[in-house]
């Protein structure tokens, strides 16, 4: 949904549970802001028992003191009974604020929450803060980080991607979930918004074009053998290459390559990506075999 259409969304009145079936199955619980879930009518175990991450959205353009106070109460309860839950605070709607004011707000909120936590005796609680806005890619970035924390074998994935990126001379590599365009892992070089935006838009291009030409008809015949997974790359005017390769049903690997020699070594890049694909699928099949933790992660969103 494009950002300008969100105006027409109605306010959430009850808990909405959305299941997302992707490489991992998530359930997102969307809590209405006005809901008082610490009342006895709600079963805390039911809400927080199987929770992986709690996302709390604060409206930075509004008077946020009230919201921060409620968040503090929530954090304290959660910390007390379910210390394993990651608490993610989105300081939202920052697009309307000036840079300076944005930093001030951020620091103020962080300060208020961490003061409260240390007063209650919780040092190093798993609370993370993000500045987000729906008018740029920051909210995707923030959600990516949230999801990444729930992936049990993230470090393995990151290592694999690092190896691939270093060997192929990729500038930046992301492993994307195609549907949501959240990246579930990337190489450990600093994240560059421009790269992320280009990669995510390139997925859009490929998905849109595929929609136009993937019609089924008995007369469409293939002319020969080809690898099952989709593969695509584009070379831009400044010789930057964006390389995309489908990994499995849900995931694709997108890389930005600025090495001018890369164009001639595409075969090698393709082969390395295939090797990575095998490794990736092995990682995932292993974790499923062992039935290891957090396969059915849940994350809940609450807003003010």
């Amino acid at each position, binding site marked *: 949904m494009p950002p300008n259409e969100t105006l027409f969304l109605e306010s959430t009145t009850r808990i909405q549970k959305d299941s997302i079936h992707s490489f991992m199955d998530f359930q997102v619980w969307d809590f209405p802001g006005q809901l008082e879930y610490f009342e006895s009518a709600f079963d805390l175990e039911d809400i927080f028992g199987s929770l992986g991450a709690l996302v709390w959205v604060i409206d930075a353009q509004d008077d946020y003191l009230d919201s921060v106070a409620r968040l503090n109460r929530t954090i304290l309860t959660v910390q007390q009974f379910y210390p394993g839950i990651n608490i993610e605070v989105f300081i939202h709607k920052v697009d309307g604020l000036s840079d300076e004011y944005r930093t001030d707000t951020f620091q103020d909120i962080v300060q208020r929450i961490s003061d409260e936590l240390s007063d209650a005796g919780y040092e190093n609680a798993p609370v993370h803060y993000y500045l987000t806005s729906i008018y740029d890619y920051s909210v995707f970035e923030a959600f990516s980080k949230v999801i990444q924390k729930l992936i049990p074998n993230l470090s393995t994935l990151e290592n694999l991607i690092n190896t691939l990126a270093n060997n192929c001379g990729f500038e930046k590599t992301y492993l994307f979930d195609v549907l949501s365009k959240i990246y579930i892992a990337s190489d450990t070089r600093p994240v560059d918004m421009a790269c992320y935006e280009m990669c995510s838009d390139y997925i859009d291009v490929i998905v849109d074009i595929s929609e136009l*030409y993937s019609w089924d008809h008995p007369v469409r015949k*293939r002319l020969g053998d080809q690898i099952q997974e989709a593969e695509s790359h584009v070379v831009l005017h400044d010789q930057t290459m964006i390389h995309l390769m489908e990994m499995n049903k849900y995931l694709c690997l997108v890389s930005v390559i600025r090495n001018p020699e890369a164009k001639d070594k595409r075969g090698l890049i393709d082969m390395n990506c295939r090797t990575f694909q095998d490794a990736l699928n092995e990682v995932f099949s292993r974790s499923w075999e062992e039935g290891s933790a957090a396969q059915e992660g849940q994350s809940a969103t609450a807003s003010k």
Partner: protein
Amino acid sequence: MDARKKKRKVLLMGKSGSGKSSMRSIIFSNYVAKDVRRLGATIDVEHSHVKFMGNLTLNLWDCGGQDAFMETYLASQRGNIFSDVAVLIYVFDIESREVDRDLDTYHAIIEALSEFSPNAYVFCLVHKMDLIQAEHRQRIYEERSAVIRSRSSDFRVDTFASSIWDQSLYKAWAGIVHKLIPNLIVIERFLTAFAKKINAEEVILFERSTFLTVTSVTSEVGDLNPIYDRHERLSNIMKAFKHCAARNTLTTPASAGFVVMHTKTPQFNIFLGRFTDNTYIFLVVPPGEASYNCAVLNTMLAREGFSKAAAGSGGGDGFPLPPPETTEDHATNGNGNPA
């Protein structure tokens, strides 16, 4: 020779606020739809030269639509404005409340045009269609275009429904531009032969800077594709990505572009690449690694042949066409594609 150097005069007219300058900016000046809010009203006539396909220069006269200007166009400026017109593009605002008055003005313009340039093409765009509910669009558009036709005297008018917020704008302008390209038939004949040679389902030629469809050919199989507005949608998709690439490589959208794009999926393979200086070629071929590579290679050869033939040196030896057509390809190069 003379004809191809000649500038084609294109009049862009319509009521004030109907969106003439907005669409001109999006198509030819790389604006995105939400940027056009910044445009002010056009005062008098804004002349711009738009280079299209290299040496086809469109001399675009964007005529401010306020009543006072309209009167001068029809009175004192009559000869100046309406002589030597190749194309008149008249924009109707679908939301206008004074439909009859709009049509009267339109009729007066048509009268003036038939006096000075009776051979001009006339295109009418029924614009801002996004403001109409989707289920009524087709019906309202058909009613409106019937009325427009009845007021167009002897001119054969092409009408298009358009909106800057979706691909319909590209459809309308591709239709207009299609009429203006000299020797299109030769280009099309070449593409048909070429598509057959490489077993392509579809071959589309896009103009480089505007990403408008110049022409396209489909095979019998490609014809069965149920998505009819795919060309406009492609223009829209690729132009949006061009904007994204420009933003993130710190250049202007005008200088951003693609060198080459390959896409292989289990259902189809696509190649997009520069064909001539001013066009991109877009091939859709059925899956098959080897035949895809062949198709790409052949496209490269055809491109070399194209420019070689244009330079007049080696003739068409790298050219994958049967001999009888080679002479015509010289003509194509002369007209559409400078070396």
